[in-house]
């Protein structure tokens, strides 16, 4: 503890002069990040090394702490939707869904069936988008740059669909409390179908490139192993937990939206290493394709917004054309939806794990307290366990395999 604070002190100063008596007799402390290509953002690791073997790790977060929870207390429920995009910025659509689900649970709003189908579709799109980046950056960190470019090629196609679908390429803010910003256009559906037709083949390409590649397998197999018991004790969720053999997936366990109507598998592996986590992500993308296909088949016609004028924003045409809608809009924008007093917790299975929102309301327009349960934050906590005993070159493979997003971890 004392050595560490000394090192921290030394790192703060411009000239770093740490001298050990005999470098071969002593442990070395390596500072990795916050600016490092393999830490996926601004994660910082202080690693204690004996030669090349890692003895201990202290992760430092907070370099991207933006004060989300404080800001939520100072704005209405509607105003907060754009902020949820930037939590897990690899899958903005599903963050929007998670937040509005929590608010709807609090206010007791029932959403029309068509909107629920579209929400399932966008959640799964977001999962594919996130896993593509996870896949690409894991491979890039290990040395296979091609996979990153291939992943981004597919992601660009999805972002085009998102562009047509929501009007924005990246940060979507697509959901509204009680529904969606707009209905899905036929053009977007056609684009999505085209994408789904060619996507499994591209996944097979990547599998062909990596999963028989001796270098890739050797870099990942048996690296960063965590046992089932440790994973549960540390509260890990998402692919990292499922890679240890626990079939815990909130889409099955606490069905939200209409996930209980779809037929899909929850892939699990028993190895608990980086390779198993990579496999899980590949499998999950295939499952997501299956879910989107089913949803596109079964999607009913109808409205996408609940008919609750005091809680749900109406369309702009109605607001500009009708007095009553204008009054409701004014009240909603200025004073918020004023849900009843109480506290709720609602979680969804995001691409990284369980993304939950705890909202405590005192009946005002703004939440009294909003707490984000972010999967990356909890998963980064496992790094000391995962890294212990491995070589320094395995650090990048392990960080890539738990796929943290610092926007979400630091809030």
């Amino acid at each position, binding site marked *: 503890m004392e050595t560490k604070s000394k090192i921290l002190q030394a790192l703060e100063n411009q000239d770093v002069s740490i001298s050990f008596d005999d470098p071969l007799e002593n442990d070395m402390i390596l500072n990795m990040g916050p600016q490092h290509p393999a830490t996926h953002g601004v994660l910082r690791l202080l690693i204690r090394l004996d030669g090349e073997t890692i003895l201990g790790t202290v992760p430092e977060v907070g370099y991207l702490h933006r004060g989300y929870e404080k800001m939520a207390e100072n704005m209405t429920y509607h105003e907060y939707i754009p902020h949820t995009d930037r939590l897990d910025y690899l899958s903005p659509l599903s963050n929007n869904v998670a937040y509005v689900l929590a608010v709807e649970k609090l206010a007791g709003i029932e959403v029309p069936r068509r909107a629920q189908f579209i929400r399932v579709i966008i959640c799964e799109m977001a999962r594919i988008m996130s896993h593509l980046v996870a896949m690409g950056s894991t491979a890039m960190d290990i040395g296979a740059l091609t996979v990153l470019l291939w992943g981004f090629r597919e992601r660009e196609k999805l972002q085009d669909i998102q562009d047509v679908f929501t009007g924005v390429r990246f940060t979507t803010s697509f959901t509204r409390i009680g529904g969606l910003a707009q209905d899905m256009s036929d053009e977007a559906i056609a684009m999505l179908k085209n994408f789904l037709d060619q996507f499994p083949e591209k996944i097979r390409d990547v599998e062909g490139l990596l999963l028989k590649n001796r270098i890739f397998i050797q870099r990942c197999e048996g690296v960063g192993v965590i046992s089932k018991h440790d994973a549960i004790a540390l509260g890990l969720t998402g692919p990292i937990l499922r890679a240890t053999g626990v079939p815990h997936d909130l889409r099955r366990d606490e069905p939200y939206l209409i996930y209980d109507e779809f037929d899909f598998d929850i892939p699990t592996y028993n190895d608990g290493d980086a390779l198993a986590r990579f496999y899980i992500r590949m499998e999950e993308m295939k499952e997501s394709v299956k879910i989107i296909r089913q949803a596109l088949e079964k999607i009913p016609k109808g409205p996408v917004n609940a008919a609750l004028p005091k809680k749900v924003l109406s369309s702009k045409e109605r607001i500009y054309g009708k007095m009553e809608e204008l009054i409701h809009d004014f009240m909603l924008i200025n004073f918020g939806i004023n849900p009843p007093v109480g506290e709720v*917790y609602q979680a969804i299975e995001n691409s990284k794990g369980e993304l939950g929102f705890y909202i405590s309301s005192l009946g005002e327009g703004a939440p009294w307290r909003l707490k984000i349960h972010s999967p990356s934050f909890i998963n980064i906590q496992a790094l000391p366990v995962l890294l212990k005993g491995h070589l320094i070159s395995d650090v990048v493979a392990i960080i890539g395999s738990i796929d943290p997003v610092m926007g979400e971890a630091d809030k």
Partner: protein
Amino acid sequence: MKNIKQKLIEKLKENYGTSIESVVEFQGTLTITVSREKLKDICIFLRGDFDLYFDMCKDVIGVDYQRPDFRFEVVYNLYSIKNNFRFLLKIKLQESDLHVPSVVDIWPGVNWPEREVYDFFGIIFDGHPDLRRIYMPEDFEYFPLRKEFPLMGIPGSIPLPRK
């Protein structure tokens, strides 16, 4: 699944009857408030009981209510994979005494969430192995999520590098 909820409430009332302050269910979220003194015992019981078996504590949440009878609440988000059941366990704190027993030895995963609550509210977890600030710089003096702290912060409290 209904059985688990009843079983949980019954078992808690049976074993810790006087320490259970309230049991509230709102929109499907079950919240049980207990007294701080018995928190650790109840957590050990919930983790160890074979029927209930709450093997995951997913999060620790601090809330600043600023009420005359109590100031802070600490909420534990407990989940049982075996029973597939979740509820919120809650304690209340006076401003004069901000000590809570740490449950890191029961669920190692609450290490960082407890540090987060300390960072935001200044609530001290007794027995925590490494209670440091997690998000804000280590020399920061205030607790940002307390209600009296202004949204834009206190100017000059964190220095910027010279231009």
